[in-house]
């Protein structure tokens, strides 16, 4: 597959990743990501017909019962927030609808 990467591609990925890149960053990342992806093309040479992917190495299942347990107090949970209303137990954010 093609690894030619355009500025428009980089802008699209940046939107998906919630990153507001500067113009300089867009230029730099277009070049650098294209280099890295071109190198990553090497994996295409491997015959993986019928091979299951390995997302993790755990030999056993890692699921557990979904049981409620004691957790952080609300005051502790909001203590590190850049903007919070601790008395109401809320994070404060800019308006959601533009």
């Amino acid at each position, binding site marked *: *597959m093609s690894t030619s990467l355009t500025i428009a*591609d*980089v802008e699209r*990925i*940046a*939107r*998906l*990743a*919630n*990153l*507001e*890149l*500067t113009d300089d*960053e867009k230029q*730099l*990342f277009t070049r*650098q*990501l294209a*280099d*890295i*992806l071109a*190198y*990553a*093309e*090497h*994996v*295409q040479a*491997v015959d*993986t017909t019928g*091979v*299951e*992917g*390995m*997302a*993790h*190495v*755990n*030999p*056993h299942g*890692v*699921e*557990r019962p979904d049981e409620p347990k004691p957790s*952080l107090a609300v005051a*502790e*949970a909001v*203590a*590190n*927030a*850049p*903007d919070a209303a601790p008395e109401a137990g809320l*994070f404060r*954010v*800019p*308006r*959601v*609808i*533009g």
Partner: protein
Amino acid sequence: MTAATAREIREAIVTGRTSAVDVCRASLARIERLNPSLNAFNHVIAERALARAAQIDEQRAAGAALGPLAGVPVALKDNLCMKGVRTTASSKMLDNFHPPYSATVVDRLEAAGAVIVGKTNCDEFAMGSSNENSAFGPVRNPWAADRTPGGSSGGSAAAVAAQCVPVSLGSDTGGSIRQPASFCGVVGLKPTYGRVSRYGLLAFASSLDQIGPFTRTVSDAALVLATLSGRDPMDSTSADEPVPDFTAALTGDIRGIRVGVPRAFVAEGVDDAVRRAFDAALEVLRDAGATLVDVELPHARYAIPVYYLIATAEASSNLARYDGVKYGFRAPTTRDDTLTTMYSRTRDQGFGAEVKRRIMLGTYVLSAGYYDAYYLKALQVRTLLGRDYARALEQADVVAMPTSPIPPFRLGEKTADPLQMYLADIFTVSVNLAGLPGISVPCGFTQGTTGLPIGFQIIGRMFDEATMLRVADAYERATPWSKCAAPV
């Protein structure tokens, strides 16, 4: 006292030859003297450490039993949470984050009597191989100030090499403990995936991350690993496997142990000094009674692309949580800006270049139209790589190879070209992909007993750190390297 090992320090405290407070003071004084030039510590918690040391001395005075790390000063990589202690991951994004809980490894260290003295510098969110991606500036190699200490746990490696502490913890996602250990002339151990709880480690790539120790001797590494290991209900990927007596495994006897050498894999791209040191290390193992056997790792040559496709995919997901809402940095916005603008501006200003590059790469390989060709393909090659190791570790009890193909490089040498930086991770990343334990031990210098440190790694079977440690310890006993101290 700062030259002593963890075992020696505990013994001296238990027998009353010194006190935990005196040991702690010596460690803090050395950090204060050396850190302005090394930049190994992001912050030091002197008061808290001295109070903790005083408690250990009180316990001894009261005749209480002392833990296996009683009074031992320990430094933590700054991506490990310690309740109430600033934890930054060397990122502007978490500049003023004070975790509401401690990592399980921190609780276990403290329960064993360790005295935590501070948080060490690292590449931002553990992403890097030179410690140059830190918002607080690079760490300098204690053996040569113009060289990188390696990364991402560069501060933890440098702190032990400079004898500021006998023990530190790092995290290893693709070599971030073993490579800096090699660059700084100390021992660095990455446990089997699942051996040590990741609870309280700021996640980078969850299927690859493991926490492990830096020490100056293999024996100390065994001691600390025993403290960290075991099932933790707070990390569902931590394994319910028995934890053997790692110290008892250090018999010094490796007669009949089969050491696998992937000759074809290590044939190319290895610096001459590294090759000489590695070949000499194999001879030492042979002279000690081990049998060298050739093994094949045919898919290891694909480890770099496989690793960077999988690790960045996982990172792009894990780092989505840093959005300026729950903790850390938030970019200033105007009244007209929306939530989405706040998110993306915060992330652009809060993350450094390498973290953004990896988030971008990971987002790309997971995006519609590219997922199968990149991410899924990488997972399939990971399976084949795992099978290579499984086969090699049937023919051999451990596998040996250089830790890094090159000695410590100059600060600034590789920062302009991320791909060149990634390629130097060739011998470490495959071990994480396969989930195996690996230990890097010093095996010489670029010139005689001076020059720059070189290490080699011994890789064990899943949950067989004991055999890996036995081989590493036998090697250390037969060589002078662990006695060589950095000229600081």
